[in-house]
């Protein structure tokens, strides 16, 4: 018990004093996850909307596949990305393994299906509302997609937040492809895992507090977004 209390006190001071290691790791976490989120959104938001608007033969199959991908275990994604990027793998020549780029790639694969699925759901609802009007106004397909993206932007922000929450808390995949190398690929989650196993609870807890803080901010934002959405204030 004493260990934990000492750890908490020490963690508190690390945060208050903006400890260099803590800051570095936090910033790297944000960098990796936000970059992954940006790329995932660039793919998932238009693709999810397109999936809601477009009717094609394999639409159901595509949606089922999407949902299956959403449940991919991160560790397995990590393993596959590892094999692809390792020296003997097809993308070995780029030397990306154990770099932040590798971690970003893994996270993009993990969160894109999630963001896309939430986008698809929200856009399908909006599309059923707008369908007749937009068809009647003779809109082109790209005009429809742009209208839905713009008018559904709050729902899309919610989707992005969900993606970010998943990315920032993920540990399995980035541990494998990043290697948790100090000053290179160490991020919040991998550092917590390491420090805990070393028994350095102060840093582990400090990092943990930062992570919890970030998660709280995300869920708070998500909540207030869905509130404004529901009360119809645009």
């Amino acid at each position, binding site marked *: 018990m004493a260990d934990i209390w000492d750890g908490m006190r020490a963690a508190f001071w690390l945060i208050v004093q903006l400890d260099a290691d803590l800051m570095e790791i936090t910033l790297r976490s944000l960098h990796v996850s936000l970059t992954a989120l940006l790329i995932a959104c660039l793919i998932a938001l238009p693709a999810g909307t397109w999936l809601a608007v477009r009717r094609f033969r394999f639409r159901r199959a595509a949606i089922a596949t999407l949902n299956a991908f959403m449940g991919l275990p991160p560790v397995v994604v990590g393993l596959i990305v590892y094999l692809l990027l390792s020296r003997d793998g097809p993308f070995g020549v780029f030397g990306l393994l154990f770099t932040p780029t590798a971690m970003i790639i893994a996270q993009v694969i993990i969160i894109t299906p999630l963001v896309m699925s939430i986008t698809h759901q929200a856009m399908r609802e*909006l599309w059923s*509302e*707008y369908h*007749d*009007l937009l*068809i*009647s*106004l*003779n*809109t082109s397909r790209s*005009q429809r997609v742009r*209208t839905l993206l713009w*008018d559904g932007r709050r729902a899309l922000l919610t989707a992005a937040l969900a993606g970010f929450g998943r990315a920032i808390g993920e540990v399995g995949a980035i541990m494998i492809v990043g290697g948790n190398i100090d000053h290179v690929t160490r991020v919040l989650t991998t550092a917590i895992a390491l420090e805990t196993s070393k028994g350095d609870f102060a840093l582990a807890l400090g990092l943990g507090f930062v992570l919890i803080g970030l998660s709280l901010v995300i869920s708070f934002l998500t909540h207030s977004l869905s509130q404004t959405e529901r009360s*119809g*204030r*645009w």
Partner: protein
Amino acid sequence: MVGDLMPLDIVGLEVRRRGKRLLGPITHRFGLDGLTMVIGPNGAGKTTFLKALHGIERISAGDLRWATSPEDAKGRQAYVFQTPTMLRRSVRENLAYPLRLNGVRGGDLAKTCEAWAERINLSDALERPAPRLSGGERQKLAIARALISGPDLLFLDEPCANLDGSATADIERMLADALDQGTRIIMTSHDVGQVRRLAHDFLFLHGGQIREAGSSGQLNDPQSIELKSFLKGDILR
């Protein structure tokens, strides 16, 4: 203008869904100008009919013959839905939307939107979210949004359902103005008084079929029992 769009001949028009025939076969000529009322009891197929004419309800059989190409015709119509769809945007942006699609930008866009907002008494509400408007305001906004890009043919599906006398009068004035500008109007209504006030000719649907059609004068001398009781306000089965 309307001259090279209308008349519209429909020949053997049918709409079937899941093996059930909802509409038709209907053969009819919509004349060059004026306002045609499509009337009939609930479920008669009025909405289905208007949507089929506008090209947003899949036609199972038959033909629409415009005086111009179908593509050209499609770009020159507007439609006001039975429950109008408000874009989740401000009143101003709702008015601006069809204009933007046509490439109108800048000062012209703002001026046109403001002029139309004034006509529907929503000048003070320009920046308010459209989905928050009252039913009557929404209906007027939907009509203004349909008229703003100057269509040659306007469809309205019960534009005055659930509205009070003054809102109805506002809307009828807008329609009269549009008619004066030469817009061809095809609409539905349940309000027998409105039918008599506005219609140049009418078309009485029952069970997906035309039971009776003619000029508005013929409303004073209905031929079928169904139309007779409809005009008296009796319940039709």
